[in-house]
């Protein structure tokens, strides 16, 4: 039985002042004139709440690039949703944050690109670092909990310890150290971003020690580098199980990178009610349950734990979304992942558009 969704990832826009090469946004970014209007977003939010959504993540791109953000926050909040703002912090002044908090933002996730400004700006492709402190202060002044998110890769893994110190300085309640997941621009930059075995091994004791030292003050979450694990992640807790994503143009997706699966047709919130899309659309039903699975997943005991991993990763790397995620050591395509983690010479980044 399909349950109603708990969360909505609303990608309000793909526009962004940063150009992170690790960005998980699709390589084909939605342009401004294809973005939903304010009324269309309001309707998406209303329908999402009626469908069962209780938590809304306002993200992008950079959600602050939408001038109607305050209005959308008020609307989502008035529906009773818990509203998260996921931001690079550029443009998040104290005034703006106070207004957004008054309108109902309850938590902010702020990304940082590295520990020191020079490195961070190199990765962001713009002068981003100097805005982070002001953004963090604004969140704290508004009395909201702050999560700092740092995406880790070959170009900043050596700064893990310093990033933890930075999060502490910024007054974060939580720090998410997330190894790059290879979607969108990150997949394009995979060879340049792939952390080395030595980097991953070095990070482990640093994170462990920090957790102990900061227990109760700053919660440190470490998202594993899935290519270097033996089993895949339980991606999205299963396809079409708990969350849906609405892309800037209104495409309704089971996960933010689902459009890569070009054998599926995704529906649009401007053309069909959200509830119908969630319960009845072929795209949402494609990988629910276990009937779609092939071997080795079909007869594997872990299938109820990891759901065969990530459908997008299976599609991108093996050409068929029904295959096991090739991160899995049991996958006949696992060699593709083993090849991808082999050390290569340092490469330049292709910056996100």
């Amino acid at each position, binding site marked *: 039985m399909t349950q*109603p969704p*708990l*969360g909505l990832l609303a990608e309000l826009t793909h526009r962004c002042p940063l150009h992170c090469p690790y960005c998980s946004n699709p390589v084909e970014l939605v342009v401004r004139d294809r973005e939903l209007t304010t009324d269309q977003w309001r309707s998406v939010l209303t329908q999402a*709440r*009626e*469908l*069962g959504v*209780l*938590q809304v993540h306002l993200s992008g791109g950079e959600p602050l690039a939408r001038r109607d953000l305050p209005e959308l926050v008020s609307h989502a909040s008035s529906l*009773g949703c*818990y509203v*998260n703002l996921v931001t690079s912090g550029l443009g998040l002044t104290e005034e703006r944050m106070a207004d957004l908090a008054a309108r109902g933002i*309850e*938590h902010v*996730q702020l990304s940082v690109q590295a520990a020191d400004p020079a490195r961070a700006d190199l990765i962001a492709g713009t002068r981003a670092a100097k805005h982070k402190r002001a953004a963090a202060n604004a969140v704290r002044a508004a009395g*909201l*909990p702050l*999560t700092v998110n740092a995406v880790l890769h070959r170009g900043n893994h050596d700064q893990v310890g310093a990033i933890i110190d930075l999060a502490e300085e910024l007054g974060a*309640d*939580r720090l998410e150290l997330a190894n790059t997941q290879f979607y969108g621009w990150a997949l394009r930059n995979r060879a340049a971003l792939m952390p080395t075995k030595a980097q991953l091994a070095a990070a482990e004791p640093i994170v462990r020690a920090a957790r102990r030292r900061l*227990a*109760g003050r700053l*919660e440190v979450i470490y998202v594993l580098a899935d290519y270097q694990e033996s089993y895949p992640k339980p991606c999205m807790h299963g396809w079409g199980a708990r969350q849906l994503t609405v892309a800037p143009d209104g495409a309704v997706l089971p996960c933010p990178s689902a459009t890569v699966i070009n054998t599926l047709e995704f529906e649009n919130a401007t053309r069909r009610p959200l509830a119908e899309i969630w319960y009845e659309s072929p795209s949402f039903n494609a990988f629910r349950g276990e009937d779609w699975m092939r071997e080795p997943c079909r007869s594997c005991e872990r299938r109820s734990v990891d759901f065969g991993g990530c459908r997008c990763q299976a599609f991108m790397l093996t050409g068929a979304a029904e295959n096991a995620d090739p991160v899995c050591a049991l996958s006949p395509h696992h060699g593709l992942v083993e090849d991808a983690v082999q050390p290569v010479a340092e490469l330049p980044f292709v910056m996100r558009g």
Partner: protein
Amino acid sequence: MTGWAPRLRRGARLGFDPVRRTPVVLFPEGVLVLNSTAEAVLRSCDGAATVPEIVSVLERRYAGVRAEDVLTVLRGFAARGVIQPEEQA
């Protein structure tokens, strides 16, 4: 656990979902749909009541409340980031 007086973490709040007709707890990392006992446990996490006090509050409302069960539920909420963990008491 003796001194543990659990309270909701910053950014966490209890609510009622009219769609599911159940109590829920909303927090930065997610949402949990609650049954009435879990809700009653969270409602008594006011940062003042200690675990034994919470147990006795629950005993007045429900039959067969066991201290170990309450502690397990509380630790579960702490692990999910809903209430302050016990080491901070």
